């Protein structure tokens, strides 16, 4: 039901607009899957830097006349949420083939410009306080989480080091120098307790995939994966004074029941990883370990593609870079590659079931959007 994953190699800075990155993702999607403008009737787009356009303007630009269109503004949760939107559209017959695109450019000053106008609440109540951007917000969450749940810097370091190991074979990864735990522990402080290697590198890039019925994928001879379950939640636990859990914790029962599998059945996990604290929260809230047991869980696994509990097998945003909204697609696209056996040198052996999770939109003090899905190889 989901097929044709493509990643457009990231660049630190790009003079091209977001339109170029999304267009290139569409073009690659066509080439890889043997389809053209007449073959898709649905379009779903996620991008922060597409102004003044939205998905609507892109239909004319891209020469398509879809009967179903959506623009998903959920940032780091956009991969899973786009999948849910597109899958429902196909399931209900509103569209047959949906192209899902996420991409952003990164001009020299565009990250600062985006932070300045990110949202009303951040503009009014967080950006004026030191303008640390996500570094500031996540440092407060990280500090609180470490104090209350006994997670140590060594634990976060282990996740970062494992992801770096996974990234070494990824051609376009921003960070390809091996990283050691000592280097992590000695790294320059950015916003206490967050250090350099906890932060993602903003960059330009795009990711894309197709959603269609299983029989259509088979007819076209495309490798594909099936969706076992998916959930999304926004502004969960608004009365928590500081974020230590996400919407997953509300939806975890439905998530596993719908799929009919258990956490131990999962062969690989892709979490949203702009800062390792949120990876640890996702592992807990999705039920891979108990709340408060993340430290122990992290010490008990390698998280490399060839070790135990493969996690963010393409290096994640921490090593590959954060290409805006494409960062929300990165894990999903990698999971599709893994389950279709096209992950190249980082292929997880006998990968059957993948869990993918997303988290996005730091509106004031916390991330508002969360989502997760379970995928199965065909």
């Amino acid at each position, binding site marked *: 039901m989901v097929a044709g994953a493509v990643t457009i190699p990231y660049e630190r800075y790009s003079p091209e607009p977001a339109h170029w990155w999304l267009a290139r993702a569409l073009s690659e999607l066509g080439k890889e899957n043997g389809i053209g403008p007449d073959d898709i009737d649905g379009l779903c787009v996620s991008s922060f830097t597409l102004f003044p356009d939205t998905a609507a303007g892109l239909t004319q630009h891209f020469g398509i006349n879809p009967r179903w269109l959506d623009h998903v503004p959920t940032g780091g949760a956009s991969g899973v949420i786009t999948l849910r939107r597109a899958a429902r559209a196909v399931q209900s017959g509103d569209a047959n083939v949906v192209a899902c695109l996420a991409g952003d450019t990164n001009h020299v000053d565009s990250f600062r410009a985006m932070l300045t106008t990110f949202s009303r609440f951040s503009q009014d109540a967080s950006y004026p*306080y*030191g303008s640390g951007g996500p570094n500031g917000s996540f440092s407060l969450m990280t500090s609180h989480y470490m104090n209350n749940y006994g997670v140590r810097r060594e634990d976060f370091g282990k996740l970062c080091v494992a992801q770096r190991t996974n990234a070494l074979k990824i051609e376009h990864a921003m960070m390809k120098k091996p990283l050691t735990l000592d280097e992590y522990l000695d790294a320059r402080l950015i916003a206490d*307790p967050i250090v350099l290697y906890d932060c993602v590198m903003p960059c330009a890039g795009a990711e894309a995939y197709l959603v269609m019925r299983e029989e259509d994928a088979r007819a076209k001879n495309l490798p594909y994966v099936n969706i076992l379950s998916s959930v999304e939640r926004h502004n969960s636990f608004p009365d928590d004074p500081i974020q230590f859990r996400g919407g997953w914790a509300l939806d975890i029962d439905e998530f596993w029941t719908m799929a009919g599998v258990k956490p131990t059945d999962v062969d690989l996990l892709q979490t949203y990883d702009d800062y390792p604290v949120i990876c640890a929260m996702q592992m807990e809230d999705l039920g891979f370990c108990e709340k408060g047991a993340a430290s122990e869980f992290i010490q008990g696994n390698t998280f490399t593609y060839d070790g135990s509990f493969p996690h963010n097998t393409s290096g994640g945003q921490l090593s590959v870079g954060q290409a805006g909204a494409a960062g929300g697609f990165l894990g999903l696209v990698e999971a599709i590659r893994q389950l279709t056996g096209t992950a190249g040198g980082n292929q997880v052996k006998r990968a059957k079931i993948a869990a993918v999770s997303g988290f996005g939109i730091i509106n004031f*003090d916390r991330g508002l959007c969360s989502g997760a899905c379970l995928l199965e190889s065909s």
Partner: protein
Amino acid sequence: MTKPLKRPPKKDPQKRTDSPTLPPFARSRKAIAFTTMAAEGRFALQVCSECKHISYPPREICPKCWSMDLQWQDIENGGKLISETVLRTSVNTYFRERMPWRVGTIKLDAGPTVLAHIHGDVGEFERVRLIARTDKSGQGVIMALPEKETPNMADDRQLRALTCDPKYRRALVTDGRTELGQCMAKALSNAGATRIFVGIAEDWRPYEGSDELAAIPGVEIMPLDVTDTISVNELAAEMGDKADILVNTAEYIRPGSPLDRHGVTLARDEMETNYFGLLRLMQAFGHVMRSRGADRDNSACAWVNLLSVYALSNWPVYGTTSASQAAALSLSQSLRGDFSGSGVKVINVLFGPLEESWRQPLPPPKVTPQRLADTVINALQEGIENVTLGPVAEDVVRRYRQDPFVLERELTQLQMGMGV
């Protein structure tokens, strides 16, 4: 404990003065309402009129009951620091120049969680009290202070960025002939100002208190007549780049409405001092002050206008004076516009009848010049931009807030017993 501030070194004239950079200034319209209260030193948040839920950040609708009726109310400012960080990088130039910068999450006893600047004396997970003030961009922000006073607390780097503390700053008092001007000079000296330039017009004319004035530590008597453009410009040329704080104490006040007088002479004199005097000062001192808003330890920080509360609404007993004060208040708003983006605050003190000879027949309660001077110092130390002083002024402002048109009727009906 805060390290006591050291007297800033004399500026190297060969060094470039930093251009003012600003913390972020973009705000929603509701957040600007928060700013107006921060400018008065009030810590107020939105309270739902129906379910009483207190919400933050500023919004349009109660997130608990969807009522649109959210009222700004002063809120108990106690809370607890539940998480903190020290920022060491920032995408914003103002903060980047001032790293490291401490911020944290505070859970208010009243309910909401806020992000705030954190005073250096606040310990981990300690209780704090929150204040709302305007920052260098002129927008309201929240800062968490230690629950109890600590030594040298005002010298905290992050707090000092929100205040205009006279300590180790240089000030200009525009008229030292009056008791008000002399109290002002003394109060600035007591508050730690290093140099206090005090303007005296027609210095060949003797005046009461001249010896005492000259004896105040730090005071330097300067020739200044705000009704004379050349005099104002000459003084600005001499010491304009040293005016970190300017307090305009010059006023010209005479009782009477237009029908009590013949001709425009008195009214013109009032305008010469109260309006054109202010305008001359602005034109002579404004440019250099505006350019020195970020001059680090030697920065310009405040322009203080002392105005009769009848600048808001005319009281015919002092009809033409009130009109000149209204003109000055309007000009002060214009100066806020000119200074916006400079980091220099415009402080307006609206006061009730002053205890001085031109208001002699007015009944109490009155404001003594000493009290007005102390209030200015407090506003500077606290970084408050809008102050109302004295029972009469408070009463007029309260009525003005309720309905300026009703106040207009009240003030013009058979001479109510309130005075300038």
